[in-house]
């Protein structure tokens, strides 16, 4: 393989806060690393050290202040996610890069099934087909069928996180970004997450997770990056 799947070079992020007298805060000092296909790359460190900032810069929810993030895209070839135009990013989000936030942000009045299927709909999969896959995922995640048509707004934190993870994994992206995937989960579900990561790797997905939960995710990581 000529290029790694993802090469982060000199990534730096600062926020200029216009409303607070133009003060600048920089949660993330320069960071560089490389992620290979199929790899599980774990970033750990105490909270507030900028772990999430890295993921958001990769996903372009944040605009990096400096550095490059080279991604080996199937659609566009080698592309710098810092500079790529928005429509390219949107296409990459649909087809190649998934993101699982720490908390599920759901659209109100949309059922659990539709929520989990949404990435498949976006990829243009037929509704029936997508929902068949969605149901499989929901039962694997241990969601009882009477909840499938309900809105996740009413779910418990653990249930919401399961939906959140399912949504991220279902699309089988080439790169999956997980933000504290085991937070607010019980031990059994934490193990489920580890299995899901392994299964995704087996299907060809590279995973970058950020966590302070080294005990659970450490053993299944191929590489680790500690932020100090």
């Amino acid at each position, binding site marked *: 393989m000529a290029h790694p799947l993802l090469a982060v070079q000199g990534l730096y992020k600062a926020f200029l806060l*216009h409303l607070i007298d133009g003060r600048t805060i920089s949660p993330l000092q320069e960071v560089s690393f490389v992620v290979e296909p199929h790899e599980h790359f774990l970033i750990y460190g105490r909270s507030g050290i900028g772990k999430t900032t890295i993921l958001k810069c990769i996903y372009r*929810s944040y*605009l990096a202040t400096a550095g490059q993030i080279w991604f080996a895209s199937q659609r566009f070839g080698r592309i710098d996610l810092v500079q790529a135009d928005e429509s390219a990013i949107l*296409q990459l989000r649909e087809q190649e890069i998934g993101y699982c936030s720490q908390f599920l942000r759901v659209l109100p009045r949309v059922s659990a099934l539709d929520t989990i299927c949404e990435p498949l709909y976006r990829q243009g999969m037929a509704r029936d087909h997508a929902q068949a896959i969605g149901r499989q995922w929901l039962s694997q995640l241990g969601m009882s069928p009477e909840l499938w048509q309900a809105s996740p707004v009413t779910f418990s934190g653990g249930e919401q996180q399961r939906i959140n993870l399912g949504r991220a994994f279902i699309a089988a992206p080439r790169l999956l970004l997980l933000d504290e995937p085991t937070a607010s989960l019980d031990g059994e579900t934490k193990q489920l997450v580890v299995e899901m990561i392994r299964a995704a790797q087996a299907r060809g997905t590279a995973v970058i997770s950020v966590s302070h939960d080294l005990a659970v995710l450490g053993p299944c990581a191929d590489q680790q990056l500690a932020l100090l």
Partner: protein
Amino acid sequence: MERPTDDWLLRVEGLSKRYGPGCPSCSRLTGPEAGTSQCPRCGTVLACVAAGLSLRPGEVLGIVGESGSGKSTLLQMLNLAVKPDSGAIWYAEPGGGTPIDLLRLNAYSARRFRNDRLGIVHQRPELGLNMHFSVGGNVAEKLLLAEWRHVGKIRARTSELMAQTELPVERIDDAPGTFSGGMLQRVQIAKALASRPALLLLDEVTSGLDLSVQARVLDLIRRIQWEEQITMLLVSHDLGVIRQLARRTIVMKSGHIVESGLTDQIMEDPQHPYTQLLVSSAL
């Protein structure tokens, strides 16, 4: 920088509109920094200055800004209802049509284009509907301009649209005046969809509605977007509405586009001082 795609439906370049005679100081004394779009010297309003944007087929673009920011002027120019002073609105029919500059169409062709390829939903239903005609007649107007000449077929299509927008089909012949605010927005949506437009323009469609009604109208718009994969341009002062529907967002202030980006980036990492203010006020 990569140019990954030229696949766009609409491409707007340097679109400007001013009201008033203009003077040499206009551009210096207006804009986001000046905090106004009206020139204090000559009174000219620079409603929209050199706006540029592009829309991919099937995408939803949000335009957010306070009243007077120029977002409605921009929308009305795209609706070919307000003639810009300069700029171009390139349109490429999905599936590889030759791009045309909509501003170069003659009045007749512009009218036809507006009817057949655009749909608009106004904040105030009386701007989009003729209150003297029945609901069915209002929806049928677009079909009639597109030369549908069979009452039976027109009513069948109108009924279909009413069902799609969750309107009671048996009330097809009732006057709009007997409908509630939320239902009137549905009627407007049904009318906008009648010609299967390439682009749907939504102007503050839920402002002024009760919260629960607002939610249902937004759900409807989202569902239609899913089902029809229709390209939408959504103007709102409400970031919550934009967040629910749009994946890319443009922020306008005093006639200028001050920031544009992915909606989550605008929300989580706003760059422009005004956007930061907007986001912080919304949360």
